[in-house]
């Protein structure tokens, strides 16, 4: 019988161990236990989240893959073009070793995309950090950004967007979520399947070392003060090797697809999850001889080899007759390629060391991780953050000063310090660069373009997990609509605390339901995703952060897109009255910066959200709108200031009634609102169309782009553009 300490080391409960014994009808061997524990980790097994995925809408007329069946979700762009995308977390490794943690996070998600035979065309990073006043936060921030830059830039895939958000709950447990988008031809899509008796399993890329052993398990326990001693559980990246792998795999898909049956990357749980998942998809058995696995270190055990998370490795399931062709193909790219096993009859995985059998078990009893149903945690009587009563604060007295302070807050200030470290242009398809709303990337070789974004305001999810998660989906879609793109589908990364905690369970269940309901209404199916639980520090759980990555389509890029605001353009507010009341400050950056309070009631009407998004897309299609900007973090005045700064223009509001609370009108974050820019002669047509749809719409003011000094003037606000820029740039 196994000891408690041993089980603790592999993060397996006694009940789970007993289940292993029951399923095997005997005690597991070392290697078997390693494989069970890795695939039953939360990271690989989705033990707490899998039962929730049933709520997600996963189908749609453009969806080509079923969620979870392949490495990433695929959508049809028409004319044989396909986009694949996925977001994945690398939180725990980044908490202890920020550079390599973030770098290998980038590497891992890239492999998910090119394992499908598609070329990665864009990366986005959704990052969350703690209190900047804590010394280690700055170290983590710098390390993560250098890691992303160091890896992504070397591989030659542009990093085109993402967010960086600060909240004290992330102190000691930053979030590093990386999304990758790839494109290619539908015919070149490759499945991650193993099948065909005697077909060889060829391991390609780096040698296997002792790095990252049990990384998946490490990602599935709470971080503690001792976590720094887990640095060996963090892998080290080699982006040059990744670049070779990427080119070799994409070329294989495009030119020699008939040589192979499947391609699967080695990520969490290394060779174990890679081989077993591929075999399970193909309903076949596999045999691996660990003696044939090239090893970086001497005397590695079967356990270590099967669980190593050494980076930059791929498993190719080749057709027997093309074995040598495949090996030669990778050799051309100077990559080592070795047959390490084969497809066998039956449904077992057999791990050998030459003649010695180290493991022999049915595959499905390993891959079918037990699940824990959290659905009975959907209701919680005393959710601690949902106090509907907001402590009242005085209205703002000096609006100029308030605007300057807002623009300098870490969450609202310019993130160019990070974006300028990312190569965001390589591949010559970047139409909108990071920092200007959603990124727009041309689909290589076509007139189509994809708009892409990541979004999630954890504070709103903390106040109300269901509504806050709906808002995350709505804001992601609104970001895309603001650049004239039709949202197509989403990927999600569920970053939460320890699900054994009732509050976290409540957050998780309601968040998933919120995402599901919002995705249904906006017709953006969930095509891929990832979960990262156990994001806990000595100070408790992180703010719940279901990061939404979304991709939208622009059918003909050459007709779209005016990247300037000319003199005398008019600005219209769409979606609400101008004046707002105190309640619109709930969940806002402004209110939190004044009170540090998670109180109030946030709300969103998803049907109305859908209506306003359709309205803006139709206005773009009619040619009535030149630019748009969604109103989100920071509220109306921040959105206007961003337009002024991004396009280097001045703005003067007309003589509007400002009878409401100024702080709420300027900085309130009522949902479902956008700003649109247009020419004077289009205004009536826009009003008419908005009226037909019962969408509130009013004219706010005029942009200036002439030789006069550029200023933002809005009621009591009167400030130079140069001062806004200084405030926006000064924090980092």
């Amino acid at each position, binding site marked *: 019988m196994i000891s408690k300490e041993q089980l603790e080391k592999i993060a397996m409960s006694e009940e789970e161990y007993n289940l292993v014994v029951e399923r095997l009808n005997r005690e597991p061997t070392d290697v078997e236990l390693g494989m069970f524990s890795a695939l039953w980790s939360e990271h690989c097994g989705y033990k707490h989240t899998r039962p929730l995925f049933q709520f997600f809408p996963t189908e749609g007329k453009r969806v080509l893959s079923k969620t979870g069946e392949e490495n990433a979700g695929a959508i049809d762009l028409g004319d044989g073009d396909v986009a694949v995308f996925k977001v994945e977390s690398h939180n725990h490794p980044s908490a202890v070793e920020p550079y390599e943690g973030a770098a290998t996070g980038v590497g891992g998600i890239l492999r998910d995309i090119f394992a499908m035979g598609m070329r990665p065309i864009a990366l986005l990073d959704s990052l969350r950090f703690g209190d900047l006043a804590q010394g280690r936060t700055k170290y983590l921030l710098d390390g993560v950004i250098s890691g992303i830059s160091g890896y992504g*830039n070397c591989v030659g895939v542009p990093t085109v967007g993402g967010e960086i958000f600060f909240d004290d709950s992330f102190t000691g447990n930053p979030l590093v979520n990386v999304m990758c988008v790839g494109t290619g031809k539908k015919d070149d899509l490759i499945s991650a399947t193993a099948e065909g008796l005697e077909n060889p399993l060829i391991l390609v890329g780096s040698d296997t070392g002792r790095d990252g052993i049990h990384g998946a398990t490490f990602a599935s326990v709470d971080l503690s003060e001792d976590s720094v001693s887990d640095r060996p559980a963090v892998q080290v990246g080699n982006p040059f090797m990744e670049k070779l792998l990427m080119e070799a795999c994409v070329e294989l898909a495009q030119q020699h697809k008939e040589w192979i049956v499947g391609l699967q990357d080695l990520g969490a749980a290394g060779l174990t999850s890679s081989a077993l998942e591929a075999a399970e998809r193909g309903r076949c058995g596999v045999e691996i001889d660990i003696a044939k696995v090239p090893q970086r270190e001497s005397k590695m055990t079967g356990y270590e080899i099967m669980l190593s998370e050494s980076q930059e490795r791929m498993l190719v399931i080749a057709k027997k007759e093309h074995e040598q062709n495949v090996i030669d193909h990778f050799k051309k790219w100077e990559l080592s390629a070795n047959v390490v096993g084969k497809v066998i009859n039956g449904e077992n995985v057999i791990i050998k060391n030459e003649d010695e059998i180290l493991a022999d078990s049915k595959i499905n009893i390993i891959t079918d991780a037990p699940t824990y149903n959290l659905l009975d945690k959907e209701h919680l009587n005393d959710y601690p953050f949902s106090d509907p009563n907001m402590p009242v604060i005085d209205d703002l007295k000096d609006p100029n000063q308030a605007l300057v302070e807002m623009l300098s807050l870490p969450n609202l200030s310019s993130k160019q310090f990070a974006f300028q*470290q990312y190569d965001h242009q390589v*591949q010559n398809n970047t139409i909108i660069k990071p920092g200007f709303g959603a990124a727009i990337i041309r689909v290589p070789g076509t007139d189509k373009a994809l708009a892409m974004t990541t979004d999630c305001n954890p504070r709103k999810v903390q106040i109300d997990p269901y509504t806050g998660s709906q808002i995350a989906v709505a804001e992601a879609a609104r970001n895309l609509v603001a650049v004239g793109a039709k949202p197509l589908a989403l990927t999600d990364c569920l970053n939460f605390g320890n699900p054994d905690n009732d509050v976290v369970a409540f957050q998780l269940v309601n968040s998933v339901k919120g995402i599901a309901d919002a995705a249904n209404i906006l017709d953006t199916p969930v095509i891929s995703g990832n979960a990262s639980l156990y994001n806990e520090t000595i100070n408790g759980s992180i703010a719940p952060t279901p990061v939404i990555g979304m991709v939208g389509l622009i059918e003909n890029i050459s007709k779209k897109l005016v990247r300037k605001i000319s003199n005398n353009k008019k600005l219209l507010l769409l979606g609400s009255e101008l004046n707002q009341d105190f309640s619109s400050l709930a969940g806002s950056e402004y209110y939190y910066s004044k009170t540090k309070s998670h109180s109030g009631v946030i709300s969103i009407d998803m049907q109305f959200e859908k209506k306003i998004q359709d309205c803006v897309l139709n206005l773009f299609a009619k040619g009535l709108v030149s630019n748009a900007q969604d109103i989100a973090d920071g509220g109306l005045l921040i959105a206007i200031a961003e337009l002024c700064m991004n396009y280097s223009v001045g703005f003067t509001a007309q003589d509007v009634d400002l009878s409401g609370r100024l702080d709420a009108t300027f900085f309130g974050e009522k949902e479902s609102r956008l700003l649109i820019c247009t020419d004077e002669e289009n205004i009536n047509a826009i009003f008419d169309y908005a009226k037909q749809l019962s969408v509130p719409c009013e004219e706010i003011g005029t942009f200036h782009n002439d030789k006069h000094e550029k200023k933002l003037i809005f009621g009591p606000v009167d400030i130079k553009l140069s001062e806004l820029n200084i405030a926006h740039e000064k924090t980092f």
Partner: protein
Amino acid sequence: MKVAIVVFPGTWSDEDCVYAMQQVGAEPYKVWHTEKKLGNPDLVIIPGGFSYGDYLRCGAIARFSNIMEDIITYAKSGGLVIGICNGFQILCESGLLPGVLIRNDSLQFRCQDTFLKLNDNVIDSPFLNSINESPSLKIPISHGSGNYFADKSTLKSLLKNNRIAFQYSNPNGIIDSIYNPNGSIANIAGILNEHGNVLGMMPHPERACDNLIGGEDGNYIWKSVIESLKK
């Protein structure tokens, strides 16, 4: 114009160069680093990237690759060679251009638009001859080691012989250290060999080839080469 684009395993600007060449009506073809001959090009481009990973000094291993020998022969016989970014680093490592590119003074990677002032007195060069009168060219950089350095005598000779092609400036062509993105000596962004047939530059002209993706100023260089080949 036939253009040989040299590809090392870690090169990532090769496709961008192909795209830029197509934009100006040239005929690009790729040459894999293990080849021994360039073929018969009118122009050779050594594009950006991380040649062999560049874990050692940038370009330090690339200079020993098979294809370099023919590139050196080609350049020494007057053939046109441009090295962009990592290509510039490789040209310096292989001795076709003087000096070295060290780590940016910020110690960080930089990807941003830069404005380049063309040296008014630059020596005769097919790359620059027909660049028009605009005060500066808007061409982006993307590098971690683009900080050009040369010893005093080399710099003096570059200046004296008018071999500095481009310097970082503002949009109006005013050269000042505040417009220098990487700390390079004398704001140097690109230099020529003594005959003007080898150009090395850190900024990426192949990325400034299409207004949809941010500008076309890079095309001036390719068009200049096309013009000079007509003569």
